[in-house]
């Protein structure tokens, strides 16, 4: 479970997020939506330990990201919105590097890398350097690296941007498969249709503050998620 309790983060006096509180339960696909600059990436970076926060607490399966960052990170995988990977590396070397950091044994990584490389139809490019890849291919490499270590919590920032329709379909399948195993999927998105179809719960953030959180039915009632979102934004 991810527990976010009264988290506040500012950048040099400028508010990033303020007093955010909600939980994401095991086996849930949870969407985090909001306008550009609303604070989605700030919260995601706080959850995955990329940057600290001024006050509050974030617990990953009961462990504090502040006190035990390495233990928390070991249970998570993060896919950023703009995959800034190591351009000088070959794709396979990058994936190996990430697996080394998570101390994944040879057998598990072989199985997972082969499985996801085949799924994303990128097997023949794994020996190529990342600087020769398009945005979408880099995103696929980031996804394979994230999935290769069987994370209990998968956190993604705008995961569908730049991906081809086949890859988007594959991610949805992976998400469904992971939740069946009781794993958590937490992602931010602007594509409200996807959020509406995939997610069990959703949170809407506006100008750094949480304006709504709950199950999809609670949030949208008999309206569409898009309509609810636009009403809240206005």
């Amino acid at each position: 479970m991810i527990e976010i309790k009264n988290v506040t983060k500012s950048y040099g006096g400028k508010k990033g997020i303020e007093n955010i509180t909600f939980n994401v339960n095991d086996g849930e696909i949870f969407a985090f939506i909001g306008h550009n600059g609303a604070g989605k990436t700030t919260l995601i970076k706080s959850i995955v330990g990329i940057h600290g926060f001024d006050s509050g607490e974030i617990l990953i399966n009961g462990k504090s990201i502040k006190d035990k960052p390495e233990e928390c990170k070991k249970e998570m995988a993060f896919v950023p919105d703009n995959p800034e990977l190591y351009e000088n590396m070959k794709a396979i070397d990058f994936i190996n590097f990430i697996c080394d950091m998570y101390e994944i044994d040879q057998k598990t990584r072989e199985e997972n890398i082969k499985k996801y490389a085949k799924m994303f139809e990128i097997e023949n490019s794994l020996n190529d350097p990342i600087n020769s890849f398009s945005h979408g291919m880099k995103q696929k490499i980031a996804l394979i690296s994230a999935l290769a270590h069987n994370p209990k919590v998968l956190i993604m920032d705008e995961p569908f941007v730049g991906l081809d329709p086949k890859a988007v379909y594959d991610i949805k399948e992976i998400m469904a498969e992971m939740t069946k195993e009781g794993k958590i999927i937490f992602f931010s998105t602007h594509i409200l249709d996807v959020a509406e179809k995939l997610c069990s719960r959703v949170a809407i953030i506006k100008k750094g503050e949480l304006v709504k959180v709950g199950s999809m039915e609670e949030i949208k009632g008999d309206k569409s998620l898009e309509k609810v979102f636009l009403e809240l934004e206005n």
Partner: protein
Amino acid sequence: MKKLLSLIKACMTENMSIFKVKTKNQSETSKKILPIVLFGLVFFSMWSYANILMESLVELHVEYILLTLFVGVTSLLTLVEGIYKSGNLLFNCKDDDLLLSLPIKKSTVLFVRMFKFYVFELLYNSLFLVPAIVVYATKVSVGISFYIVSIIAIVLLPIIPIVISCIIGFITTGISSKFKFKNIVQIVITMGIILVVFFASYNINGLIDSLAQNADSINEVITKIYYPAGAYIKLVTEFNIQDLLIFIGIHILISVVTIFILSKVYFRINSRTKAVSSRKNSNKEYKIRTNKPLNSLIKKELGRFISSPVFVTNAAFSLVLFIIACVLICVKLDSVPEILASRGMEVTVEQIQNYIPIVLFGLISFASFTSSITSSMISLEGRSFNILKSLPVKPSKIILSKIYASVAIMVPFILIGDIIFFVRFNFNIFEIIGIIIVSFILPLISETIGILVNLKYPKMDAENDSEVVKQSMSSMIAVFIGMGLTGVAIILIVMCAMFGLANYLTILIGTVVFIIIYLLLLLYLNKSSVKDFNKINV
């Protein structure tokens, strides 16, 4: 013109961010003090050095030689620095796609990139030239024309070295872009050119002698060797407006013609450098290997180092010079007294042989303290720094991996130099042990300082590797600290020699002193590095 000014403004805002003062809290303000103190120290050192030189020049009534010397050395440094980084500064810019899609002339884009290069060199040159000009003005009675000419000279003098280095950058990038292994070819060509320039400038005595025999005055000799220096000295000693206009005109003409000609081929070379020939690797069976986290991190750092020609050439320069110096001392020891005699130092071969271990100690200090690799390693992560921060690895391990990778690059060079000395000369066992310890400790000190400095002064938004390796606050501070530590090593050696200590005792004292320095640095590293690492937000 409006477009050009807007473009310059946009690029310079980004490029000169290292000089911005935008901090409010105390810990951030204290970070401003170190660079100010170091820049002040360099300025003061140059001023003191200029004063000492001036004392003897006044007696000979050739005061203007001071200006010649400083202009010559500064121009040579700008040229060598420029050769390192011009290829990268001009051809590896992240804003290529944006600029090339805008309705701007090709020559304007090239001009802006060369202008950024120029502004940095102007500021850097001023650090060396202004003290010399101040000393000259205090010792010689000068009129208003001296100040006008000197200000114009400071502005114009970086132009010719920059133009030459840009042409060399075009040639090296143009040639290397035709090869599959572009980086290796570029590293080899650049290192070759730098070494040629370095040794040519070292052996310039012969050229000066032959020019002097056919010249009526020293000024004429200087002008023949390097026009800008000669023209500046002539304007200082016998000012006339016509020569000043020619001086300005030549520099402007050279800049305009160079930009015009280079812009014709700039985009062709630029697009060729971006072509990736790696597709041939497709369909090869990929290998899945398992490594320990620390080993994998070190491997990643070594890969990053090798992938950047400017990073390699910058680090390798001192190390290659170290090997060359070791070989020359071992092979041509008999000619060293002659070389030193031409510089006013009377020593015999036997005297040098007596101090061989100390000479090696000095050379190791030079090689270690003048090649800080870690001072760029955090900045070179750029936006991918977030990958490191999201990994389940302690920041201290990441920091250590960078230090170990850098030491692994440096130590083999130093050990080769050691072995050359051990084979050629007689060292006792204590000297050998001391030298080997020093060969590890000094690079460790240099690289620990480098990482500490880079964590305090990261530049995560650089346009290319050159901006980090050659033009960032971190790399400059590391160079200044390295110069200071080389000074500490030399003072230590001289003091021990003055007390008549045996070589092995001198090396022992040096080893103990530097081990203490290293332990203190380790304490500081443990205390502050993780905090600084976590503070960096990309």
